[in-house]
């Protein structure tokens, strides 16, 4: 019997950092099982063993990816029954949260989203109202479902590695009966930069970049950072919508957030104000972003940013 079940959707050739974080966190709750969807490579199985996973569940059906959310929730409900787990951990992506939501109804289980920490007794920590409150919450039901944010623990393998057992889980025949079907999918070209929601450093630009993200991209590359944007910049089509940070974009919580040419509207702040260190570069001394910046520069980003990039390159040699 497992205590915690971690869902890992399509692990690919190697586990993402956020998956390793889920596994690290799950060990606090007891013996861990994993439910994966998609192919399981030997490497991934070995890593799961190194992270203390006792059992890896796989679905009897291989078409879960053809449906939106509902089929995966059906599979996961069956995996919870098979594992006997009392806590389920999924990633906090929009899809992860929805799987958690449907799973909660299927299992009569309380769901807690946006989790940034879990105690051994199942108490979850989260921040709410755009980062203005820290709360603790708990499910009052036999099973708890958590969707957990990325970047909250350092991944750490278990003391002793084990070879996990694998087991098939029978996906309920009607799991996809009420699911929307995915009729086409286009994968966006990878930028080669870190994933925005997981990056340690984010360099973000707004209307002030006036159509040219070049200087920010160069700074990002010098720092190994992801590139983010305000809605004004994504709406203008200067950068893809997936770069948008904020209430209706991605929420980030990096070590360092550099905001350049962004005024700092409430919807933008909602997505970044839990960053450890905030740097703001803006021409206008009255911009609200300066109210939350640890280091603010009143100046033209087209002068400041290239100078900083050159200096970083010089110091890094």
């Amino acid at each position, binding site marked *: 019997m497992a205590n915690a079940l971690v869902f890992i959707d399509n692990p690919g050739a190697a586990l993402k950092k956020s998956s390793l974080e889920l596994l690290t966190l799950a060990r606090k709750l007891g013996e861990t099982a994993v439910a994966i969807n998609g192919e399981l490579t030997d490497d991934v199985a070995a890593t799961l063993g190194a992270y203390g996973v006792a059992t890896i569940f796989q679905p009897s059906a291989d078409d879960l990816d053809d449906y939106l959310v509902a089929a995966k929730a059906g599979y996961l409900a069956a995996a919870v029954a098979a594992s006997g787990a009392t806590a389920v951990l999924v990633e906090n992506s929009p899809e992860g949260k929805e799987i*958690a939501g449907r799973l909660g109804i299927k299992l009569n289980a309380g769901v807690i989203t946006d989790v940034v920490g879990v105690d051994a007794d199942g*108490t979850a920590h989260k921040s709410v109202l755009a980062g203005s409150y820290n*709360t603790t919450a708990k499910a009052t039901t036999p099973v708890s479902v958590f969707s957990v944010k990325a970047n909250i623990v350092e991944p750490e393998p278990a003391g002793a590695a084990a070879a996990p057992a694998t087991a098939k889980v029978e996906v309920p025949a009607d799991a996809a009966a009420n699911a929307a079907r995915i009729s086409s999918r*286009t994968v966006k070209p990878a930028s080669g930069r870190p994933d925005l929601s997981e990056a340690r450093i984010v360099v973000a630009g707004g209307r002030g970049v006036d159509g040219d993200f070049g200087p920010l991209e160069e700074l990002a590359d010098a720092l190994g950072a992801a590139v983010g944007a305000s809605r004004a910049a994504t709406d203008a089509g200067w950068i893809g919508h997936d770069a948008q940070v904020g209430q209706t974009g991605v929420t980030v919580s990096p070590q360092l957030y550099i905001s350049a040419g962004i005024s700092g509207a409430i919807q933008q702040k909602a997505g970044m104000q839990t960053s450890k260190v905030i740097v703001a570069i803006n021409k206008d001394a009255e911009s609200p972003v300066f109210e939350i910046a640890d280091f603010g520069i009143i100046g*033209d980003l087209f002068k400041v940013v290239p100078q900083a990039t050159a200096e970083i390159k010089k110091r890094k040699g």
Partner: protein
Amino acid sequence: MKIVVLVKHVPDAQFDRHITGPGNTTDRDESILSELDEYALEAALQLAEERGGAKAGNEVIALSMGPSGAVNVVKKSLQIGAYSGVHLSDDALAGSDAAATSLALAATIRHLSADGRPVDLVLTGMASTDGETSLIPAQLAERLSLPQLTFASSLEVNGGTVVARRDAGSHSETVEAQLPALVSVTDQINEPRYPNFKGILAAKKKKIASLSLADIGVDPSEVGQAGSWTVVESAAARPPRTAGTIITDEGDAGIKLVDFLAAQKLL
């Protein structure tokens, strides 16, 4: 087509928001229509208008669950253009988590289908601007056994099929389902209209149905804190971020920035 749009009464994010009371719930004085629900309402109005509007038998019903003040967001929805409104209100609903809320909303939607004209489409915003969990669309769809098409950045209904586009971080996809269905929409889908003078006058003549738990056949023990599956045990205001060092560029701010990053061990 019969469309129900969920509209939520939320504290205005432009002001400080507070968590209060023994249940650690959000203070709802100074509340407004959740901005992200305006996109769902606009999408509903466009679908109904494309089909000939009220004259052709289409319905756009704005539904809000919440305390007495929540009726204001139903009224605002009517001013924007919703054809009729429903306000679900009951003291026992206070403190409902997403699971309990979705139970009450599911019962309300079944109730609205009981007149022989079933609801074809439930439309919601991508998240509320207070709880921000995005759980309600998924949980409501699960309770009503409906397909969900969430985070739609475009939406079409062709005959009995609903087609939506969604953009995830690494890919974009087209999803489709048969009606009845539930769709949540992002702020990319349209430009919501504002109430105009004509709309405000017209809203006065539109009907708002007030429903209680008894009307929708839900026992008070199934909702509120009694029916919730989660409890918020503690809430502490985060100290607001305070401004740090602000400098004005004198030609060397880029260098000073790198000095700062080095001092913070961020290089």
